């Protein structure tokens, strides 16, 4: 494909992203006219004061979260698929999100198991993300230590999966000894949620996200060389170990912070890189990193708008929506295209 049509696709996708961003904000239990929303976002005041609060303190942070989560998870998926040269890899293969879940599980479920140490009523806004980050960081350190002991990249994949099962097992044991109320609280967290983020939390999220994206852009060159396999990458002067560690660190950081703030969101990280590769029919990371980010943001905005059930009081769990609507689309794409690439 020529550069010109890449540009055309990028312009179209960006326009779609902006449109969906506004649509997403206009959906919700209170219906607000599109014109009023546009007016509020551009600095004006809407005709009802409550609308301003709804838009600026609830819907806008949620839409921004959707963009960060969608693009972040998708880039992690892309990095993992290229690093492991495996189309089934995703941000969760390293067990990072299981680590985050473990942190949250210990915080919520542990309070009934360990009794006095943690009191569930003291769970504040910040304790969930902190517990999740600590859990993710714990698994990340274990994976990186293991990664430096084994030479084979495929072994790291398996080690990550093992850490994942280990943490899931610990969570099962914890749930077995927990009370129904705590289990319910944990299950709600695992449904995933893009809302509930204050502007302060969003700022912390945004800074870490931005660092992750800078990191991802900085490894475009080694990522492209990995397309030929590790031996060729080494032969063009790429430091395999260092770049592998950088990629693992970026993925863990992004997955960790995303899971911490929005719960484990399935499917997006695995599927979006494939959608980007099919749409742009390229394996070049200079094209794939921006396109994966934009498509990831679009996908999550769509999923969130569906989860919102326009004009209804209810919000469906985002984690279910991403898989319910996403999986059939990917299956259809694969059957149509017949081949799958890294």
């Amino acid at each position, binding site marked *: 494909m020529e550069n010109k049509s890449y540009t055309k696709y990028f312009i179209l996708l960006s326009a779609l992203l902006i449109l969906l961003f506004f649509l997403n904000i206009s959906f919700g239990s209170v219906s607000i006219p599109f014109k009023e929303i546009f007016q509020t976002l551009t600095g004006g005041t809407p005709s009802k004061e409550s609308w301003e609060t709804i838009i600026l303190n609830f819907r806008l942070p949620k839409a921004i979260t959707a963009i960060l989560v969608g693009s972040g998870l998708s880039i992690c998926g892309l990095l993992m698929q290229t690093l492991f*040269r495996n189309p089934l890899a995703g941000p969760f293969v390293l067990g990072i999100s299981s680590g985050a879940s473990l942190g949250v599980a210990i915080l919520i479920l542990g309070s009934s198991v360990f009794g006095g140490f943690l009191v569930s009523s003291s769970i504040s806004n910040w304790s969930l993300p902190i517990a999740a980050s600590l859990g993710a960081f714990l698994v990340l350190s274990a994976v990186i230590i293991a990664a430096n002991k084994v030479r084979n990249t495929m072994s790291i994949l398996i080690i990550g999966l093992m850490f994942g099962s280990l943490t899931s097992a610990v969570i099962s044991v914890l749930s077995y000894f927990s009370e129904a109320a705590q289990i319910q609280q944990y299950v709600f967290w695992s449904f995933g949620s893009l809302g509930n983020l204050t502007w302060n939390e969003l700022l912390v999220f945004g800074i870490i996200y931005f660092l992750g994206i800078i990191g991802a*852009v*900085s490894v*475009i*060159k080694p990522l*492209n*060389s990995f*397309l*030929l*396999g590790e*031996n*060729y990458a*080494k*032969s*063009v*002067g*790429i*430091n395999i170990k260092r770049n592998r560690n950088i990629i693992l660190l970026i993925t863990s950081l992004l997955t960790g912070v995303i899971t911490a703030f929005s719960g484990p969101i399935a499917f997006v990280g695995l599927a979006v890189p494939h959608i980007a*590769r099919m749409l742009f*029919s*390229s*394996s*070049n990371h*200079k094209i794939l990193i921006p396109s994966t980010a934009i498509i990831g943001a679009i996908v999550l905005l769509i999923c969130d708008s569906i989860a919102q059930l326009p004009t209804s009081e209810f919000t469906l769990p985002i984690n279910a929506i991403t898989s319910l609507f996403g999986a059939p689309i990917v299956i259809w794409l694969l059957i149509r295209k017949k*081949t*799958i*690439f*890294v």
Partner: protein
Amino acid sequence: MKSMSENRVLKTENLSIGYQTKKAQNIVASNINLSIEKGKLVIVLGKNGIGKSTLLKTLAKVQKPLNGSIFIKNKKLSSYSHQELATSLSMVLTERLPESQLTVFELVALGRQPYTSWIDKLSAVDLEKINCVLAETEIHHLKNKRFHELSDGQLQRVLIARALAQDTEIIILDEPTAHLDLHHTIKIFSLLKNLTEKTSKTIIMSSHEVNLSIKFADEIILFTDAKIYTGSPTELINNNSFDNLFPKEIVNFNRNLQQFIINKK
């Protein structure tokens, strides 16, 4: 004598190659003393499993030598960083490439990575070099095709083009004609031979094509069970080295025809 050492691009001293495990050393071959000059086509011959690939991997720093030393352009290989070595030595491997949608042009362009900036932008020099090697290997018409659509023979030329784009004095190829038919095998051999003559690059390759190697090689490194013979094809024919290559019951070397002949029943 002085001119000889100036022309020498690769030298080994008492090199032992093989695999090091925690418990033991598995020596594949030892006491290898090579001296390879600029612009030569050097072919490594020997039966399966005798250590041809191990030698090439050791020379390319993919694998560590068990003993002895390797010098590339009079500098010890162990003191080269991978980045530095990437501008002196390039490789064509036998391993299959992972599936991807890379085009031929993109794949060849990856050979320019030692010279590109952190964002991997191709400069005018890079583009010129890439177009030049596409022409040299006669794959210009394939440049927008995806590499997984190519035939084995075409893919091999693309991989050779990638190594050429890396612009190194030494190119190491591990069995570049495996899986190819006779026609394409000869095309690859003559391409490599032409390259050594035109560009004065040194090409070191392994092969099972003994008869063709005798015709094309400037220098042969012959692995046999007893020892490693080195020399020009004529030298090796004259001192009967080829007789030691295979067990004698099936094929024998015929000195007059300068090739291996299947025994008559």
